């Protein structure tokens, strides 16, 4: 029983996400199909919004997958296919939003946090070093013998 549970657990560990693309949806040309998969993974399903259309079982996602494959077969480039979908559903469908006026805050957020945070940290460390670097007063003879006593007690136990 334990081995079974362990085996099941290991199987779950290696199980990856399964795409929702059905065999009959796929293109016969493997190169085109690979591009279709690549594009589908970049496009958000507008019904279940945190899945790509490649992952989603929603009927609308299947329609969009079919459209992606149709456009590719018609000779569109990857960018043209993306633009076709974006023209209908907006930049929201791109799981990786483009850098533009609306998203500049989003893309610059890491810098906005890291730069002031880094500066603050640098200032703090410099100040601490300056005050802390001043030579500490050396231990007096009394303190040294007290310390030796403590350490000895610790060793004995």
């Amino acid at each position, binding site marked *: 029983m334990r081995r079974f549970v362990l085996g099941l657990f290991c199987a779950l560990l290696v199980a990856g996400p399964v795409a929702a693309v059905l065999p009959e949806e796929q293109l016969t040309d493997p190169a085109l199909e690979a591009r279709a998969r690549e594009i589908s993974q970049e496009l958000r399903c507008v019904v279940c*919004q945190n899945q790509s259309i490649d992952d989603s079982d929603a009927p609308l996602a299947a*329609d969009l997958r079919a*459209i992606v494959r149709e456009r590719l077969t018609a000779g569109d480039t990857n960018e043209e296919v993306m633009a076709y979908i974006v023209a*209908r559903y*907006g930049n929201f469908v791109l799981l990786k939003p483009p850098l533009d006026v609306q998203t500049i805050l989003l893309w610059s957020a890491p810098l906005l946090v890291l730069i002031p945070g880094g500066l603050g940290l640098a200032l703090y460390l410099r100040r601490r070093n300056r005050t802390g670097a001043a030579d500490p007063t050396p231990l007096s003879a009394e303190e040294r013998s007290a310390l030796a006593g403590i350490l000895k007690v610790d060793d004995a136990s």
Partner: protein
Amino acid sequence: MRRLAFIVPILLFLMVAAALGLGLRRDPSILPSMLIDRPIPTFDLPGLTPEDTVGLASTDFTGKPVLLNVFASWCVACVIEHPMLLRLQAQGVTIHGLDWKDEPSAGAEWLAQRGNPYTLIGSDPNGRTGIDFGVTGAPETFVIDGHGRVRYRHVGPITPEVWTETLQPMMDRLERET
């Protein structure tokens, strides 16, 4: 300096909290339409049954402002919305229907049972026209002006509040424009 180091993080926190708080009040399932103030996509759809000689085409949207309602026989919320559409039709509002991703005969039967609030109906079984409109689900309603341009998109059923507060004032304004 000391006091500043105290106040600035608190101010920053309050700003971020306010921004996130406002974000919580938005419904993330409602996406902005790409078509606002743009002409409707070109389409020419057949009716629901073979006997229907007229369907719905993009050229039908000229003259006066109309509503385009996306519905389907599989759509649960459409059942809730339907009496409201019938009431609007009785008030003289022109509503065109788009039977989206639906078996045309199922759509026809659905309307036969509940009454038909639509002036013209287009059947869109593979959903392509809906996708050209950026439809994410049914029901959805577009306000289209007399020049065939999309002016507003409402996601979900038209409730009496949605009609009196949003759609009716907009239709009245567009009516005066034309």
